[in-house]
């Protein structure tokens, strides 16, 4: 049995699955239920200064696709809307009752040292295992110069991180916003400020849709809408890329990463680990199905690790990073060609029309007797994979890698006007 125990910058949990700072971790009641369900840890819903913020009614918008609900979720909620003292008392009780679980407290107070100095000891007193700095909230709080407004300015990230490191013994995790052009900038700033770890991604600024009858962006609050933060399965690719960028950056010295963004299954979790995460935070999937989903996440991850011979989480973390390279390092001599399994083919014609209209006209269509038949024209196929993706039958169209004759990357390619001419030996 794989060992799923996690030690993340000194914060221990029986498994790497934490609930991200969000409604599932808003109060004691939820968190106790989460721990009973088996979650390894929680990042408590972000605390702020009193008086608490006020949330609107009508808070979420959902992106549904072809019958699947909530492939993306957007929200216009703010941080915890309960008094600080209430949260602090509950955190203390929960931590006391679940000493083996990770309890991290998310914080967001004004960008002034006094504010941070004031709140840190209060949090420390709960016995919490660490803090996470919410530099990510992209709506509502950013207009008040908090959240993403801090996360988007590397100098602020560094400064606030440093204040925290100087004023608490608790490990400091900096939660990064994806609403920037280069994730490495705030990540470097966090490291300079002394962060123990980073977590990402927070939500992405979004308008989830428009109510076409009322002509209002959704979710609609009394006839008006505002932009919100986007998360759920649809953001996973964005998260994976940003996490990978940080994990492979030599100057970040392997800063520990808590991966977040669309994790819904053990398979997602494994991918996040492979791209450099050590712990995994989940929000939307829990909001969609409840806490019970953690069962299969734990089970599935453990079974997969056993199958692959990975004994501990460290064996998986960052495994894919050596193979995550800049485009310039890809071998332009590599070729793969589509192959259609005629036995499995249901003759829907989707590969044909996709390649014909939008790719490289590499699939032929013919009638054999009364049966339509689709075949790859191998000489024309550029190996783009499109047909394999549109085919509704699993493994019917497979991509066949061809024998490779050496390596040629863009920097050396004859078509590259700035090519580096290989030294003649």
């Amino acid at each position: 049995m794989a060992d799923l125990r996690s030690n993340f910058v000194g914060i221990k949990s029986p498994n790497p699955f934490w609930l991200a700072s969000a409604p599932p971790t808003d109060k004691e009641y939820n968190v106790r239920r989460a721990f009973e369900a088996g979650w390894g840890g929680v990042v408590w819903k972000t605390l702020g200064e009193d008086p608490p913020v006020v949330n609107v009614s009508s808070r979420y918008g959902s992106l549904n696709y072809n019958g699947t609900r909530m492939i993306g979720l957007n929200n216009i909620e703010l941080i915890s809307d309960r008094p600080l003292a209430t949260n602090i008392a509950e955190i203390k009780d929960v931590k006391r009752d679940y000493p083996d679980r990770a309890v991290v407290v998310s914080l967001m107070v004004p960008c002034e040292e006094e504010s941070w100095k004031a709140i840190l000891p209060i949090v420390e007193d709960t016995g919490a295992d660490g803090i996470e700095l919410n530099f990510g909230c992209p709506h509502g709080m950013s207009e008040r110069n908090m959240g993403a407004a801090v996360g988007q300015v590397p100098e602020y990230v560094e400064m606030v991180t440093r204040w925290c490191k100087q004023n608490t013994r608790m490990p400091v995790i900096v939660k990064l916003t994806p609403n920037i052009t280069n994730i490495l900038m705030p990540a470097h700033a966090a490291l300079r400020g002394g962060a123990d770890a980073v977590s990402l991604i927070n939500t992405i600024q979004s308008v989830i849709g428009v109510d076409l009858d009322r002509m209002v962006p959704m979710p609609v609050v009394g006839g008006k809408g505002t932009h919100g933060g986007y998360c759920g399965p649809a953001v996973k690719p964005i998260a994976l890329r940003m996490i990978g960028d940080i994990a492979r950056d030599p100057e970040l010295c392997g800063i520990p990463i808590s991966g977040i963004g669309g994790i819904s299954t053990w398979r997602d979790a494994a991918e996040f680990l492979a791209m450099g995460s050590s712990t995994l935070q989940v929000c939307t999937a829990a909001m969609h199905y409840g806490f019970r989903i953690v069962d299969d996440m734990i089970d599935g991850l453990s079974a997969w690790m056993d199958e692959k011979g990975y004994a501990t989480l460290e064996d998986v973390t960052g495994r894919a990073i050596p193979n995550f390279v800049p485009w310039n390092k890809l071998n332009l001599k590599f070729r793969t060609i589509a192959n259609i399994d005629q036995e499995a083919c249901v003759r829907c014609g989707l590969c044909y029309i996709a390649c014909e209209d939008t790719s490289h006209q590499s699939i032929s269509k013919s009638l054999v007797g009364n049966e339509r038949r689709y075949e790859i024209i191998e000489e024309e196929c550029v190996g783009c994979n499109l047909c394999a993706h549109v085919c509704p039958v699993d493994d019917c169209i497979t991509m066949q890698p061809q024998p490779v004759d050496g390596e040629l990357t863009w920097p050396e390619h004859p078509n590259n006007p700035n090519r580096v001419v290989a030294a003649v030996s």
Partner: protein
Amino acid sequence: MTRTPDIASSRLSDAELVVNFSDAHPPLTKEQAVVEAERCFFCYDAPCTEACPTGIDIPKFIRAIATGNMKGSARTILESNILGGSCARVCPTEILCEEKCVHNAREEGHPIRIGALQRHATDWQMDHGGQPFTRAPETGRRIAIVGAGPAGLACAHRLAMHGHDVMLIDAHAQPGGLNEYGVAAYKLADDFAQREVDFLMKIGGISFEGNRKLGQDFSLTELRRDYDAVFLSMGLAGVRAMGIEGEALDGVQDAVTFIEALRSRDKKAVPVGRQVVVIGGGNTAVDAAVQARRLGADDVTLVYRRGHEQMSATSSEREWAQTNGVTVRLWSSPSRMVTEDGVLAGVEFSRGKATADGRATYDPKDTFIVPADMVLKAVGQLFVTDPISGESILVENGRIVVDRSYRTTMEGVYAGGDCTVGEDLTVAAVRDGRDAAEAMHLALSTPDQSETSGQ
């Protein structure tokens, strides 16, 4: 022992009859329709569309259901098939579009429910949008259509759309043809046939005259004189005789006559036996048998002279008969009606089998009797030539001969539907009517056309 024929009406209560003759397959809810629509792969050059006689762009209308574009969905169906609503209910989709659905290749017997989705979209149109098409400016051309069944109605609608004036004439009081008095009641429940005719007529430019029979009340020559063109869509008005002893006895009836009574009268007033024998192997036989059961017959036996494979009723029709408690007996040929005291008491059959060359032989000595107080004959319908007998219209193998443009051998006279050769299906009749209308429209818009006629 004396018997009296036990044929009676009102075997069941009103409430039972309402249940028995309501929609056999209730409509999909909106949620069900969207889930089903989203299963569709949106195939390219879709095989389902090729299998539809009217060539409805099926992936397109299904995708429109999935995206919530109900108007576009209905329009896609109706522009190919203005009777898309009844076709959705009566088409044997298991041998048409749904048979060709690629989902069968993944899981046999689980095609997209195209018929049910088509019904969903066309119902929406009839409930919300009324007639989606408008007439072209009037051309002043007048066309007569004889027979207001699916072929005649589809032809009328298309001609009206092109701006022509249409006179629909029918021997029955109501338009609709077999949709109105032939197709099983539970397939076209709740007066759907009539509602659909009303919907279709809303295009304008179509007049209807009922209770007027060609060959009796008027002649084809008169029509040719008074109209710019004529379309014949008279269906099959006759039935085949079995030619056996006792066929004229009381209690022996044509299945189509029985069904017509059931479709046009209060179900309670339709007499049915306790023990009913239906002879035949087509959908008419199945419909008669099932409806006899649903009227309250105790035992219904459907007897066909050959095997399953030769039956023209589809396998789902056969299953439908069986789940409705109809006993199906195969390889049995009727030899005579059996009487007791001059009253119908049963039918005698001789057992048969297939010979090596695939033909059927029956042993006249190996017989059995199925008791019956009512016998329904469903051994095939025939085209009755009398109404056109004096005219220069070629009839071959019992059907009117037409060329690819639906022209008969009489100038300016077209024909389609069951009275011409081809599959006897509602959807095929609709295609004929539509395409004949296009051919007539073309001929009327380019006057030279008729002179350069020929096969």
